[in-house]
């Protein structure tokens, strides 16, 4: 089984935490908190605006 989420969100300047960027919380766009192949659990953060 699979679950696909498609959603609209503001574009951010920081696409992924993996990129190592940290703008001190000034970024107000969508930011991913996951990586490909990562195992996730219910309730775990996938990303934030």
């Amino acid at each position, binding site marked *: *089984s*699979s*679950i*696909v*989420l*498609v*959603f*609209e*969100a*503001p*574009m951010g300047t920081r*696409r992924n935490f993996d990129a190592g960027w940290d703008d001190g919380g000034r970024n107000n*766009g*969508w930011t*991913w*908190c*996951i*990586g*490909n*192949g*990562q*195992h*996730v*659990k*219910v*309730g*775990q*953060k*996938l*990303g*934030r*605006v």
Partner: protein
Amino acid sequence: LKSAWRDTKIEWYPIPIGLGIGFLGLLQFYRSQRAEKDGWETAESGDVDGDRPPPRKRVRPSGPWQVQVMSTLPLKAISRLWGRFNELILPYWFRVPGFKLYSWIFGVNLDEIAEPDLHAYPNLAAFFYRKLKPDVRPIDPDPCAIVSPADGRILQFGIIEKGEVEQVKGMTYSLEALLGQASPSQAAGDDTSSQGRKASPKDSADMAMHEEFARVNGISYTLPTLISGEAKASPAIEFSMDASTASKPSSEAKVKADLALGDGRPWYLPKTSSNALYYVVIYLAPGDYHRFHSPNSWVVESRRHFAGELYSVSPYLQRMLPGLFTLNERVVLLGRWRWGFFTFIPVGATNVGSIKINFDAELRTNSLTTDTAADRAAALATKKGQPYTGFTEATYFNSSKALGGHPLERGEEMGGFQLG
């Protein structure tokens, strides 16, 4: 018998050419009849007079021989049979060793399940749809986050560009193929917004400006053509159902408060011109917890059920079969959240079977009746001169008239995948 086999003289004669041609013609006729009966797309679909509706079009998947073989199998029948098998009551003595073996093979953490006594699960279907202890899956407290709706593995995530969702390693499928096109009533141009007000000329201008922005920046999605946000139930076809179930007042209040953080505009008008569409694909392995939860506070306005076929959605097959998700049976829940459009799509697989949505008692997946309903819907749409959109649709307007849909809180259980 031995002497007859050895001593009988064998004489070979050529088959008359006419007989050979006749046989090949008969074979071709039989194949075309069979294809039409099965609903596979043929060049001459429908008759000239229009009395008989054309067969429901299905696309035969392309791919390597493994996929071709799989496409010939009666996957739905196998899935239903597999489901029946898994509903057989297991002997009491077999349950503990059987479920422990299953857990060992597929990596189930038995310490997390709500009912630790394995004797309480009468069959594999019940164990597969097990509940977890209340505190083992804490919800991330960040109010601006989207949380994982299920246990699983991230297969792919990113931004949707040019209306294409990347599946795995460069294989893409269009957003419209996944979610479905605008239904006929929506395509007719109902311009009432999801907030219950008529779209003003300014809204139209904003929308045009947004589309222009999206086009220039290569984010060519056209949300208004995917689904319009009308506030009243307007079934796309006669078989659409108004699957209304009462929502919890607490959920309604919380979701309403969360949505109020937005600017109250219709979801298809973005808050700023810098919005984008994002996607994430989560794969649930056989040993994972198979219930899913709401990833954020949002309102489900409608659902679309694509009967499709059932395949495996394993990463291996996703690499082998382009457009796998668009061939599979899936339920598309369309709605909105604080930042605009939001869609939740559970995709079924043959070895799992049916998709359950807790607040939609009328939804039946992986069943014979859905096949029949889809066929009837296709025939009716043709009779009414409308294109068949390939799905049956239901709206949740009656669930909460204030919100125009069914409200879901973050972390709230929405449904799950069941065996069979």
